[in-house]
């Protein structure tokens, strides 16, 4: 073989298809623009110190490949690192760095380890060939070789390389997708943690607000109810002290004082109850309760007031008990409010409380023979602060909280309230309550 200097750069025959590599003293090689941009064509680096052979190979390959030339292993290595080649075709015996040294160097460099190498070997190189194949050369041709054989083998290697690049690109992009996904997951985890923190803060604030509200309720409750009680008792004192020389005007004044105190007390109880329900503290303890017993008690309590207005009040119950698992205090408030309303808005006739059992429900009906409620008004009566009498012609005391409280309590007890009315004939409120309430108090 001849020296590297033989691969002179002024060799016109190679121009255009063969890139002449500069000698060792000169700068590293760059690919001509048409090679860099011709991505479709595979690029082959021919490493051969024999210029004639190199030219022959370039001619064979140039129809299918972009071909570059290096005159020994060292130049080849520099070219490979600087460029992008699909296949290396290398001679074995070369000055400075031989073909087998080149293969070893390439396989140790991660940037070059994937480029297939085809070795041009002599017949006598059997042992070396085998070693090179083990060390990472992909294929070989034995000199003398035919143009077709060389071309076919290089094409195979190039195709393997391209396929492998494609797969690796695909893999890398999937890795990028995974990385992106991981980033998104961790970002959303962070967002979720932030949201959790915000939620905890909001919950603490709500709990604190609820505690404050509860304290204020108790304080207001105490502060208003004590003087109310005091007023009522002072009226009682006056009444008893005045018995001896009772002047009618004085007694009327005391009656009026009593009524005022009683109305204020009821109103205040309503407002507090409403606030309590809105604060989510409507229910206390669930117990077994006989609806019949409750109905009878409430009717007994209302009897004096109904009698005072000339109304009859009845309670109709089935023979056996109607048992419910419910909050007795809340349910008593519901029924007492409904009965009180019925008595308040009925001028003549009667008020009836009826109890019955219906499969999984206990049913309470409160019926009056009062003025009734127009269909258009039926929807509004459960809203807080709605009264059907206009304020200027108001005859009945109250602020219109009773039914709002009733509805909220019934709903808190897991039940349902309905109203039917015929104007001029009367009204029926029906409360249906589950016999075993699934909803337990908080």
């Amino acid at each position, binding site marked *: 073989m001849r020296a590297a200097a033989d691969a002179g750069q002024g060799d016109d025959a190679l121009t255009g298809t063969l890139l002449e590599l500069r000698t060792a003293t000169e700068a590293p090689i760059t690919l001509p623009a048409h090679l860099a941009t011709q991505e479709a064509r595979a690029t082959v680096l021919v490493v051969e110190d024999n210029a004639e052979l190199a030219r022959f190979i370039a001619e064979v390959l140039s129809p299918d490949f972009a071909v570059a030339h290096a005159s020994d292993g060292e130049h080849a290595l520099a070219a490979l690192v600087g460029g992008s080649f699909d296949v290396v075709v290398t001679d074995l015996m070369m000055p400075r760095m031989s073909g087998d040294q080149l293969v070893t160097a390439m396989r140790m460099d991660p940037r070059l380890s994937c480029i297939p190498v085809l070795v041009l070997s002599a017949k006598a190189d059997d042992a070396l060939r085998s070693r090179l194949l083990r060390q990472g050369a992909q294929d070989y041709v034995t000199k003398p070789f035919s143009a077709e054989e060389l071309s076919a083998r290089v094409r195979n290697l190039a195709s393997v390389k391209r396929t492998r690049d494609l797969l690796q690109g695909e893999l890398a992009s999937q890795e990028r997708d995974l990385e992106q996904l991981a980033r998104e997951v961790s970002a959303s985890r962070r967002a979720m943690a932030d949201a959790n923190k915000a939620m905890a803060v909001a919950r603490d604030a709500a709990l604190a607000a609820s505690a404050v509200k509860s304290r204020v309720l*108790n304080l207001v*409750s105490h502060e208003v109810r004590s*003087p109310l*009680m*005091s007023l009522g008792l002072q009226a*009682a*004192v006056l009444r008893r002290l005045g018995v001896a020389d009772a002047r009618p005007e004085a007694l009327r004044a005391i009656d009026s004082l009593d009524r005022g105190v009683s109305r204020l*007390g009821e109103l205040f109880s309503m407002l507090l109850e409403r606030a309590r329900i809105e604060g989510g503290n409507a229910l206390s303890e669930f117990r077994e309760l006989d609806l019949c017993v409750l109905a009878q008690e409430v009717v007994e309590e209302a009897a004096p007031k109904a009698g005072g207005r000339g109304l009859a009040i009845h309670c109709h119950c089935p023979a056996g008990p109607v048992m419910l698992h419910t909050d007795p205090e809340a349910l008593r408030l519901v029924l007492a409010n409904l009965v009180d309303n019925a008595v308040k808005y009925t001028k003549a006739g009667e008020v009836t409380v009826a109890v019955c059992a219906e499969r999984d429900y206990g049913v309470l009906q409160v019926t009056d023979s009062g003025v009734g409620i127009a269909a258009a008004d039926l929807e509004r009566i459960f809203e807080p602060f709605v009264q059907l009498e206009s304020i200027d012609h108001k005859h009945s005391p109250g602020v219109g909280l009773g039914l709002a409280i009733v509805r909220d309590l019934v709903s808190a007890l897991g039940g349902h309230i309905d109203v039917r009315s015929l104007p001029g004939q009367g009204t029926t409120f029906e409360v249906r309550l589950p016999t075993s309430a699934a909803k337990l108090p908080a």
Partner: protein
Amino acid sequence: MKSIMLVDDESDLRSAVRTLLEMEGFAVHEAENGRVALEFLNQGLRPDLLLVDLMMPEMDGASLCRAIRRDPLICGLRLLVVSGRHDAAQQAASCGADGFLGKPVTYENLLAAVRGYIGGNSGSLGRSGAGTGE
């Protein structure tokens, strides 16, 4: 003569209750808070019944009731909580009171409750409901 101690920080309320109960023939003592009531008891006063408000300065009603129940000398006293708190029933039960009345209490109901606890007359406690505070 049966005696009753009123423990309430509202002086108008105390004076009205006192007048009415004295008319009914009870001896009445007043204390404006739990600490004062406890001092009377430590001095040897033994009322037949204490009417105890819950919210009071210095020593509230629940603390007074607990202190009484802890002291072997006075733990047998009858305690009736009279309060406008919405949780008066639970408070009364948890501090060991014998029952509670929810303010505002009418004169009739108050008298019925008092007689129910210490008088011969154990008649109806009425709508305001002196309960056992269970």
